[in-house]
């Protein structure tokens, strides 16, 4: 199954060009951000409503670096990852003091703070006008390859991490933190690193998004962007990295398809389809392809 998906993804650029290839890149970069949020919300049990902060920081990092040093994608990716991870490292000690709904609120608050800063600091960000970025010197196919490559590497590393003791401990902390601590496991640090790593990966997705649109804007930092990522993850099913990828694919394709039919009822129809999917598949899309019993046996 996974091999089939891989082959399809690798063949996409040869079969597609123009707009469909653009959509394929969009899927890959949203999948990257969704996988990061699944690590956080699914495995670490930290449901964040502030992922837009990391996404936007990545996007503006791409814009600012491109403006000063030229549109070098390797450099913007490195800076975007670092900036988002550092932001995560600074914010985590405060955010992780709370859990559950309060964690959700505090991550939202931090993201709004970043949004407000970007809005006011016009000299750096262009404020509400946004920030136009020079096009990177990559063909559409090569850009897609970069998106897909980052997604695949991230998936492999996270899958490895989650099977390793550290991942098992993270999952145990989510289930029963006092118990994990009584076993001598420093719950805080597992959550801390999950938060920072997820932040960095989301930053990468933001960089890719900015280069893809040749534009960074306040919309990248908007709370609606955080909601969108959470919807993608829930759609795909929590605690399944492949589910997050499937969620991103379904969501992006749904959006493209519906907006090609109508432009007045777009949000209404997307909402209706999402409600239907969530009602029909309590544990996300991935649970249809791989029913829970089979998943358990796989482990």
């Amino acid at each position, binding site marked *: 199954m996974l091999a089939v998906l891989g082959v399809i993804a690798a063949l996409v650029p040869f079969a597609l060009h123009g707009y469909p290839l653009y959509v394929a890149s969009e899927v890959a970069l949203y999948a990257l951000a969704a996988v990061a949020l699944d690590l956080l919300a699914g495995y670490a049990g930290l449901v964040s409503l502030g992922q837009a902060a990391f996404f936007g920081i990545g996007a503006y990092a791409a814009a600012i670096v491109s403006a000063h040093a030229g549109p070098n994608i390797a450099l913007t990716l490195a800076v975007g990852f670092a900036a988002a991870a550092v932001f995560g490292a600074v914010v985590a000690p405060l955010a992780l003091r709370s859990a559950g709904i309060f964690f959700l609120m505090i991550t939202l608050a931090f993201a709004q703070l970043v949004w407000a800063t970007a809005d006011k600091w016009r000299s750096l960000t262009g404020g509400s006008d946004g920030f136009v970025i020079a096009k990177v010197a990559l063909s559409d196919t090569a850009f897609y390859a970069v998106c897909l490559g980052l997604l695949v590497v991230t998936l492999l590393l996270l899958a*490895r991490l989650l099977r*390793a*003791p*550290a991942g*098992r*401990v993270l*999952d*145990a902390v989510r*289930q*029963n933190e*006092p*118990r*994990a*601590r*009584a*076993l*001598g*496991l*420093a*719950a805080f*640090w*597992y959550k801390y*690193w999950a938060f920072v790593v997820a932040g960095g990966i989301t930053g990468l997705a933001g960089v890719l998004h900015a280069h893809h649109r040749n534009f960074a804007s306040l919309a990248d930092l908007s709370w609606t962007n955080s909601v969108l990522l959470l919807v993608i993850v829930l759609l795909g099913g929590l605690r399944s990295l492949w589910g997050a990828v499937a969620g991103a694919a379904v969501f992006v394709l749904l959006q493209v398809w519906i907006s090609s039919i109508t432009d007045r009822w777009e949000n209404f129809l997307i909402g209706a389809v999402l409600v239907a999917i969530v009602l029909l598949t309590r544990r996300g899309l991935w649970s249809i392809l791989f029913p829970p019993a089979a998943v358990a046996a796989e482990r």
Partner: protein
Amino acid sequence: MTADVAARSSDALAVDSVTKRFGGVTALNAVSLHVARGERRAIIGPNGAGKSTLFAVISGSQRPSAGDIEIGQRRTTGMPAEQVARLGVARTFQMSSLFAENSVLENVMLGTLTAGGQAWNAASSFDRLAPSEHDGRRALASVGLADKADVAAAQLSHGESRQLELAVALAQRPAMLLLDEPLAGLAGPERERVGRLLLDLPRDVTILLIEHDLDFAQNFADRMTVLDNGEVLAEGTPQQVRADPVVQTVYLGTGSAPVRREHARGETLLAVRGLACGYGQALVLEDVSIGVSRGEVVAILGRNGMGKSTLLNALMGFLPLRSGSIELAGTDLAKTPALVRARSGMALVPQGRRMLAGLTVTEELALGARPGPWNIERALALFPRLRERARNESQTLSGGEQQMVAIARALLRNPSLLMMDEPSEGLSPALIKTLEAAISSLRDDGETVLLAEQNVDLALAVADRVYILERGRVVAHEPAAALAANRSRLERSLGL
């Protein structure tokens, strides 16, 4: 007092005038305690005396409000729980506390990661789990759970989770072990096995044990400490402590068994016929038929995992039936949801208490109250302890106090049928006597009670009739008096 508790170099644990307050409640008041290396210390005392809080403070999950704690000559006051654990301190929790989604084996493997106090962090190598699996399986075998290794922890019976709880703590290869009521809710062979296991623990491990089974605690411990109301009431060898008259009145309770009044049995209130149900593929109960008449106390006896809780949950509507009928006062409720059954007059005191988050005791009691002979005043008169706790959040109460809230909460529904799932679990001997008196007085008032119990003495003292469950079937049904007269036959049929 201070003179005897001056630090000694052989001390594994020194607790020095530790006070812990939760809001207005002082759970521990200047408690001092010295435990020598390799010593076995039993901590006993009434419910709400502060025993579990003492463990929480020693293990670092609660910070003391005042006082000092030293573990193996290291000051650990205010140290986070994970660091205390790495000093070689393992603990079990009063209410089983597991990683429910993980398999039994994975639970113990998580315990081995910091075994013997070794450092462990996220960067540890990936191949750590192979030796850990070996150690984990050994720990499981030692508590008799080897054949359950691949079962999800959530699927274990109550008794099995207690055994797993202990296996996880042993997998940590602790230098000091804090055991919070390891025998609660265990009966028969399970109780014997876990009891044996505790007695056979290596003598170089320092052990603190909270246990209500005084015979076991006396047999196990080198010394005993009695806590009452957050203070040390007495300390000494088990013989000294048991002989202490103050301990006698505070903890063991006095007074004779309540006089049993014979009364006429009314018409059938509950009739269950051919009930079958289970979880997923597994059938837990098969062809169970029982009847309860109005004004009668009926007990369901059986070892852990024989289906007692499942039966009560199925009667209450928390579990769908595969087949069979449930009639309450002539109305078939088999296909109705729990809400309808509750409105029809059924109330359940669940195992594990299930307190609601954020509510005070008074609110918790008021929540389900319906008009009838039971009102809050009368419930508080039954459990005076709750009056003192009325304004505390119910989740902050001790296990035994929560049990009282759960019983009072069910009574306030003024049910026609009161069902209780192991109400005696985690209660001190004195409180079990209170409970016994309470159930007897309910019976004398003509209330109808269906009780699932492992505590044979309690069940026989209060019940009119007894059903015995074995592997999901009713294997015996007799008047309690007949069983009481022939204990050995009863114990045989329970497999004790």
